[in-house]
C-alpha cells in the first residue's frame, strides 16, 4: 500500500541494459505505482547500510509499505559483525553474550522464524519479497543454487532449505515471515565470513538454560572462497542478480538504497529503534528457567561447596530465584536476601551486579568474602 507521500517521492525507472551492477540512487528510481501494469514486475535492491538493525528495519519497511501483490523484490545486504537470532529464540542458549560484549558484536532478533546466524561483511544476505500467493522458498533458493552452479560450484538445497556445498557443508540458512498481505524469505550465503569468530559466538552464554524456545540446528559450515578462492564478492552478487532476472523473467540492474535516509524511507528510523530495544531483543525471549550448580570457594580457608541455582525468567526479567546454599556455608537468611534482590530485575549480569551492591555493602563482616564469591558465581551464571 503506497501512501500519497511515497507516490510523490518515487517514480519508476525501468533499468535497461548496461553493466549489471551499475546502480542508481533511490531518489531517482524505486517503486511502480500499483495497478499500472498487469504483468509481474521485479526489482533488485542493494542496501548501502552495514548496520544489522537498520537492514532488518529496511526489510520490515519494504514489507509494510510496498505493494507486493504483483511485484517481486530481491534485497541484497550485508552487515558488520553481528549475531542474529530467530523470533522465538533464547539468546542465552544460542549465543555467547559475554564474548559478544567483549568483541563489540551486537545481537539482533529478527521477525522471521528459524535459527541463529553470525553475520559479517563476508556473508551475503538475500531477501526475496513477494505476495503471499507468490511465496515460494524453493524457487528463491533455486536462484542461489543455479547461480552457484553456473560458477562451477556444487550447491544443493536440502529439505530444511539449507544450502549445502559438495553435499556436506552448510553455506546458507533460510528463514521467513508471513505478514498481513505479503511475505519475505531471507537467507544467508557464506562467501568469506570469519569462521573462528562464528564458532566463538555461536555457543551458549550460560549453562542450565531450559526452555521451549525454538532451537538452532548446528551444522558444519564453510565459505565459498575456501572452495573457489577466485570468487570475488562482486562476481557473486552479479551471478545472483543474473539468475534472479532469469528466474523471474526480468532485466533489472541493482539499485542502491540507503535505509538511513528518512526522506526515502519515512519511519524506518523508529522501526530500527524498536529492533534495537532491550524489550524486543531480550524481552521477547520465551519464558525459560535456569537450573545449574554454582561452585563456591573460600580462598582464605581453602574451602569449597556447591550451591543449587534455580531461576525463572519471563520477558527477560527474573521472576523467581532460589539459591540452595548449605546453611553452614552461608546463613540461609543471607542467601535468601541475595535471591530476593534480583526479583524483577533484567536477567543481565550488569543489572544484577547493581542490585547486589547494596547488599554486599551492608554485609561487611566475616561473611562478606563468601557473599561476594556467591554473587560472582551467580552473575557468571547469567551470561
Amino acid at each position, binding site marked *: 500500500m503506497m501512501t500519497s507521500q511515497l507516490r510523490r517521492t518515487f517514480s519508476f525507472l525501468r533499468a535497461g541494459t548496461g553493466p549489471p551492477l551499475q546502480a542508481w540512487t533511490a531518489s531517482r528510481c524505486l517503486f511502480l505505482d500499483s495497478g499500472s501494469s498487469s504483468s509481474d514486475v521485479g526489482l533488485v535492491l542493494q542496501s548501502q547500510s552495514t548496520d544489522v538493525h537498520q537492514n532488518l528495519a529496511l526489510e520490515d519497511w519494504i514489507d509494510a509499505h510496498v505493494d507486493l501483490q504483483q511485484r517481486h523484490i530481491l534485497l541484497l545486504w550485508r552487515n558488520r559483525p553481528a549475531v542474529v537470532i530467530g*523470533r*522465538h529464540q533464547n539468546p542465552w542458549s544460542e549465543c555467547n553474550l559475554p564474548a559478544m560484549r567483549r568483541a563489540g558484536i551486537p545481537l539482533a532478533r529478527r521477525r522471521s*522464524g*528459524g535459527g541463529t546466524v553470525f553475520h559479517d561483511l563476508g556473508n551475503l544476505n538475500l531477501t526475496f519479497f513477494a505476495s503471499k500467493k507468490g511465496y515460494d522458498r524453493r524457487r528463491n533458493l533455486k536462484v542461489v543454487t543455479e547461480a552457484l552452479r553456473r560458477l562451477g560450484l556444487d550447491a544443493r538445497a536440502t529439505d530444511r532449505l539449507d544450502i549445502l556445498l559438495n553435499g556436506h557443508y552448510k553455506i546458507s540458512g533460510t528463514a521467513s*515471515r*508471513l505478514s498481513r498481505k505479503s*511475505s519475505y524469505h531471507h537467507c544467508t550465503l557464506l562467501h568469506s565470513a570469519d569462521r573462528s569468530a562464528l564458532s566463538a559466538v555461536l555457543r551458549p552464554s550460560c549453562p542450565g538454560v531450559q526452555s*521451549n524456545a*525454538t532451537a538452532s540446528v548446528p551444522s558444519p559450515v564453510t565459505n565459498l572462497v575456501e572452495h573457489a578462492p577466485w570468487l570475488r564478492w562482486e562476481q557473486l552478487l552479479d551471478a545472483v542478480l543474473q539468475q534472479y532476472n532469469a528466474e523471474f523473467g526480468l532485466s533489472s540492474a541493482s539499485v542502491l538504497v540507503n535505509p538511513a535516509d528518512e526522506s526515502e524511507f519515512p519511519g524506518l528510523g523508529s522501526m530500527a529503534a524498536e529492533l534495537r530495544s532491550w524489550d524486543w531483543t531480550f524481552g521477547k525471549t520465551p519464558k525459560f528457567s535456569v537450573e545449574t550448580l554454582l561452585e563456591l570457594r573460600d580462598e582464605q580457608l581453602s574451602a569449597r561447596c556447591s550451591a543449587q541455582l534455580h531461576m525463572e525468567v519471563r520477558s527477560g526479567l527474573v521472576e523467581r530465584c532460589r539459591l540452595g546454599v548449605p546453611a553452614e556455608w552461608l546463613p540461609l537468611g543471607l542467601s535468601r536476601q541475595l535471591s530476593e534482590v534480583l526479583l524483577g530485575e533484567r536477567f543481565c549480569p550488569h543489572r544484577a551486579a547493581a542490585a547486589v551492591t547494596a547488599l554486599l555493602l551492608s554485609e561487611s563482616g566475616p561473611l562478606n568474602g563468601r557473599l561476594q564469591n556467591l554473587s560472582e558465581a551467580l552473575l557468571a551464571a547469567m551470561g
Partner: protein
Amino acid sequence: MAMRATLRCLSANFSTRLPQLSSAAQVSARRLLWRSSSPRTLSTTSVLSTALKFTEKHEWVQVEGGIGTVGISNYAQEALGDVVYCGLPEVGQKVEQMEEFGALESVKAASELYSPLTGEVTEINTELAENPGLVNKECYAKGWLIKMTIEKPEELDGLMDQAAYDKFVKSLEE
C-alpha cells in the same frame, strides 16, 4: 470440496462443545432477529453467540458468557504447516481489533496473529507450550490460542459467519 472438508472438521471438533438450541428456541431467536430494528433491541451477536465468526486473516472467535475464544481456521493451519512454536501474549494484555497479538512459527514461516476483536486477554492456552502441534490437529478445539473479553460487541457483526467464510476461502483458492 473445501467447504465439505471444513464442515466435517468443524463437526468432528464441535460435537461436545456447542450447546444445542431447542427448535423452539431457534424459532423464537429468529423472530427476535427480524424484529430487531432499533439499537435497543437484542443484537444479532448475543443470540448467535455460540457460532463461530471469522476474520479475513483466518482467525475464528467463539463467544460464550461474554468471553471470546480465539483460534485459527483449518485453512490457516493447513497453509502454515506444522506449528513448532506459539508466541502468545500475556494475560492482562489489552489488544485492539486487527492489532498483532502474537505469532505462530511453523516450518514454513513466522506468521503474525491479528486480534479479531478489541478486548483484554484473560487466558492463554498453556498446553500449546508443550504441544504446539495442537494448533494443526485440533484447530477448532484443543488448539485454541487465547481467551479475551469483548469490549466492543458490535465488532462481531463485522466478522464473517461460517457460510461467508467458506465462500471467502473458496474465492482465495481460485
